[in-house]
């Protein structure tokens, strides 16, 4: 069993938080994992990507080979497209529909969404709206993690435990918002097809 996941988004959208929760969940579940992330200059409002590899056997490369990712999980639709060459033929894309427009040449959003639709297995989630419903726009990343959860080899219960653990220092309210965001995302993904 192995699962290779490309996490994508823009610096500040909480990509590394998603990665950290998946890592912890893998650790609690007794799986091997490797996860690369972006620090330093590239993090300042630029494209951020993290490769997460889960397996019940030894993992060698920290990077996922092109054409091998089982899942692309993106908090931003254009960023989902940026890494399409990593997606395996049977792979799935789970992405937010909400553009993060901080560049002068951001393409027409309809064109971006249509390109995602060309991938036979794709799930769109309105993370902007659902995070608002959960109580904070900062929880878009947890909406997306929830939406992707049914494709993950990790158990929902353990994912939620990891969320609780991570946000413990920030208090019960933040834990509740993030758990709610996760559940709303999961429900939206289930209803999308």
């Amino acid at each position, binding site marked *: 069993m192995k699962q290779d996941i490309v996490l994508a988004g823009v610096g500040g959208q909480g990509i590394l938080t998603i990665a950290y929760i998946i890592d912890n969940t893998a650790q609690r579940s007794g799986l091997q994992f490797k996860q690369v*992330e972006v620090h330093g200059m*590239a993090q*300042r*409002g630029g494209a951020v990507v993290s490769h997460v590899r889960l397996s019940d056997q030894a993992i060698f490369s920290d990077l996922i080979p092109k054409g091998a990712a089982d899942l692309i999980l993106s908090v931003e639709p254009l960023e989902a497209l940026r890494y399409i060459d990593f997606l395996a033929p049977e792979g799935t894309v789970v992405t937010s529909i909400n553009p993060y427009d901080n560049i002068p040449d951001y393409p027409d959003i309809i064109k971006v969404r249509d390109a995602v639709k060309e991938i036979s297995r794709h799930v769109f989630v309105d993370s902007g709206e659902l995070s608002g419903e959960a109580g904070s726009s900062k929880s878009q990343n947890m909406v997306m993690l929830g939406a992707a959860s049914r494709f993950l080899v990790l158990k929902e219960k353990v994912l939620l435990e990891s969320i609780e653990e991570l946000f413990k220092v920030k208090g019960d309210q933040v834990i509740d918002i993030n758990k709610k965001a996760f559940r709303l995302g999961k429900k939206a993904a289930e209803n999308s097809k």
Partner: protein
Amino acid sequence: MTNELILGDEAAALGAVHAGISAGYSYPGTPASEVMEFLVKISKKNGFHAHWCVNEKVAYEEALGVSFAGKRSIVSMKHVGLNVAADPFMNSSITRINGGLVVLVADDPGMHSSQNEQDTRYYAQFAQTICLEPSSHQEAYDMTRKAFDLSESFHIPVVIRMVTRLAHSRGRVKGAPRREKNKAHRAASQDWTLLPLNARRRFAALVEKQPMLLKFSQGSPFNSLNLNSKNNKLGIVASGIGYNYVMESARDLSPAPSVLKICTYPLPRSLIKELMEHVDDILVVEEGYPFVEHSIKGLFGIKGKNISGKLSRALPMTGELNPDTVRKAMNLEPLEIRKSVKDWIPARPPQLCKGCPHIDTFDALNKALRDYPKAVVFSDIGCYTLGALPPYHAVDTCVCMGASVSMSKGGAEAGIYPSVGVIGDSTFIHSGITPLLDAVSSDRDMTVIILDNSTVAMTGGQPTMASGDKLENIVRGLGVDLRHIRRINPLKKHLDENIHVIREEIEHQGLSVIIALRPCIQETRRRKKEKKK
């Protein structure tokens, strides 16, 4: 010890803590910053010193002082940081290292956050010392721990060479029990006073040690040689994380190649020889420069053997390795890649944050320079280097720490007017003070703008040594004419005023220093959060 879920940098740092360090020193720099971040976080509880220093040279020398006293220390930095610390590094290998001294250097192949991709293995060879190159989190931990023993038994500084992909990869590490710190036992003066009389003796001693270092390397369990008796054709030499990319695809090769994994330097000659005698073709896979490949091939190659790698262009000479390029070099078909890849996806480069003080300084500078089409703005290393990108196009150079000040002096002497230097507060403290003193001595016609945002912003907000009044006092102390030390507040509402100040100082025929003082927006947020706690 428990299983720890940590970054490669942190795994190495943990190895140092468990090896019984008394101190750790560093200057921030991607991809090495997390080593010291980690040490600072746990230093109090574990009772050792952990300090951010003014620059890598100072950090190295502080660690060297600890070694002289007989205690263990680690100094960490990014690859180009070792250029700054090259003087103490090269000379310390001639001393008789007392307490274990480990130099952790993180290279940045692919230049994710750097101005070059120099390979630290050459430095280790240059200093004739041992270099260990981990390929996994566990090795980062184990090797750093082991490095202290090697340093103490051979009396040399030992280098750990990390690369970005391991430094910033999260994984799991099994720790071993922490051992006691060394007790103080100071070194002998004659082994540390590098007067020619002593230095000649010490250098001879270093040369005499080399066969022992080779013997260590050849017998080290960090290397492994797997010969496939059924395949006399292909052998792969893989070093560091290159090994991971080879193993990622090796299962698809039939018959399986013989693989030599190299993680220690000096190169384990006997293992390479054994592999060479077994196969005809050798593929060398290594992150960074073709160090191993060149060493094996020499100038003229080896008769009857086909050696490939970066020099033969089987792998790219520049940039970072990845599983795909290595797969191709192993003559395997690429995995199937979907056809729907789009060529119209625009890049999303890093950029200055909304509300960043540098934006307002660049705006004022650009407007002030509008009437001076021949102006050159020499810049430096930091977030403000992003001022080179659109929409600012505000700076013309970025070479190395502190070069903005010295280059604007050189530029002015070559006739450039206005010659402007732009440097951050932390970079100024790191390497800008000495060139400014140089500029003072000849009152060169140039304008230095110090962007004082009160933090080391690019690397994640480490503390700066001097900001605000303290920084200004340093500038005053260097002897800059007090009338031409100006302070501006980079805010939109002060734009006209700031343009005016910059123009005035450009018109002044001599050295001016303008300090643009406003804290980094991220740092302000962090401080607010901490207050709440």
